[in-house]
């Protein structure tokens, strides 16, 4: 297993993608980005990241649909996810149950908070509970 966790960031807003990536890269993480759900799914399968950070509202596929597909996919079914949402509603728990979303952060968010969650979720002790086969 590689020492530096790989984070996949998915958002259709280029500025958000940029700022989140930069924050994580500055903290020493490796980052892969995608600008929509379909691209996100392809990259997740390809790179098998340690964590996915995704926006909720995106073209073609919502963040929720992406996370549901990730859990259904053999190679990504244990990857935890952090959801960012700008919509003013909370997601139904039954929808979340079909995903590995552990945290939902509402926009506007704090990059510090994202980093804290990422550090928490990519903690090596937690990694042990995950299935083998990550990058």
């Amino acid at each position, binding site marked *: 297993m590689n020492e530096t966790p790989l984070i996949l960031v998915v958002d259709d*807003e*280029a*500025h958000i993608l940029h*700022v989140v990536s930069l924050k994580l890269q500055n903290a020493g993480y490796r980052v892969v980005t995608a600008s929509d759900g379909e691209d996100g799914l392809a990259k997740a399968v390809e790179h098998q990241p340690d964590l996915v950070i995704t926006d909720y509202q995106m*073209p073609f*596929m919502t963040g929720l649909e992406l996370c549901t597909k990730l859990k259904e996919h053999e190679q990504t079914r244990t990857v935890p996810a952090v959801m960012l949402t700008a919509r003013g509603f909370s997601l139904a728990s039954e929808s979340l149950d079909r995903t590995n979303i552990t945290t939902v952060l509402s926009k*506007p*968010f704090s*990059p510090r908070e994202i980093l804290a969650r990422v550090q928490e979720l990519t903690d090596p002790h937690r990694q042990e509970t995950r299935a083998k086969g990550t990058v």
Partner: protein
Amino acid sequence: MSVLKWLSVVIALLSAVVVTGLLLLTTGRAGTPIAVGYPTIALIAAGLGLLPGIVLWLVAASYEAELRRTITCTEALEEDGPPQLFRSCFGFGPLLEAHQRTVETLGSRLKRMADQRLDLEVELRVAEGRRQHLEAILNSISDAVIVTDAFNEAVLANEAAAHLLQFDLDPALRQPIEHIVADPTLVKLIKDTRESSYAGSRGRRRHIEHRMGCNGRVTVYDVTLTCVASSPTGANTNRADGSGPFLDVGAGVITILRDITREKEIAEMKSEFVSSVSHELRTPLASIKAYMEMLIDGEAADEQTQAEFYHIIQAETTRLSRLIDNILNLSRIESGVVRVQRKQIALAPVVKEAVDIMQPQGRAKQITLEERPCLAAVQVLADRDMILQVLLNLMGNAVKYTRAGGHITVVLSADENERLARIAVIDTGVGVPQPDLPHLFEKFYRVVSHRKLAEGTGLGLNLVKHVVESVHGGSVSVTSEIGKGSAFTFALPMAENG
């Protein structure tokens, strides 16, 4: 000749024969010599015999004359002539007086009846007028109204009800409700309300939201059911023996159906709008907050990165204020309080400015943005800021609904014949489904299949329409093909010397 006169003739003849006969028999049997001869005796006897007949004839003639006079007087009375009373030997005077009284009594009664009839005719006319008035009121109500009686038969309905439930107004009257209302739930509601009147809920209103399939689409109705009683108090009438309530035949149910489909849609649109506005406001705000925090935390390594962050914060602040402007402008234009600053302006520089503003957004999505200006200097009398906003809204939509690698072209042209300046924003985007096209410019309207593609408030195009048509007297139009792209065009009247 009357019977009495014939009778007097018969009596005269008979009595003459009898008297003559008796006299001859008497003289013949006695054998007494007499001074006069038989013929003389017979003549005298016949004369004596005729006398009562003659008297009776005279009496009969007199009676008949009085009777005729009485009839004439009675007829005069009937014809409302003056009473011609006379002294009658046969007692016809009191009879005539009695007739006169009867005629007078009958006359006054007839007059009273005629007056009453007149009153009734007036009342009937007034009632008919009121009925027509009420019918006109009932028919002017756009909500469907049906009145049913104690036997659940429709006794009154308006045109809206007939149109909605598709029955003929007149023949439907006095028909069981289930014959004219096809929806079983509604029939059950009406019957239940009718039955509940016995349980003391008379006069109480029930509001029920009911969905009905009509002409292939589902319509939502607010159904108001009111149970009415024939007695003004509306109290239950119980049998004297306490065995239960009477069937109050005058009681019934008034059912009013109000179509609230549009209200429901607007409520949903507004809810969707609030959610969308929240997303639209939070997205640039998220960038601003994140980049600010990065700057504060010293995460921008060099001056170039810092400058890039400042630019992003500035661009996102502009985006935020543009959205707020959109919302406020729309509300101002709708309420008519917007201040329009119309000046003669050239359109080409406005188009160029709009393209320049949108370039960064286009580049971020790898979309090419270009302008194709008109060779002639096209001038219009318009509010420059408003026209710029129209262009930004149209181009913003084009960027949203065009995939990476697409093109957006803004074409400015002049129609010298119609004196119109046209600006078309043409994209190679996803296109708009044909059924959505007529609704695109409606407030809060969003194409269902586009909701997943991008966020939006459903205000942008509505604002475009308001600015172009209401404020500038122009026109907007759209053509689109799925998978090929869309072209949004607006035309403005050219300035006189433009």
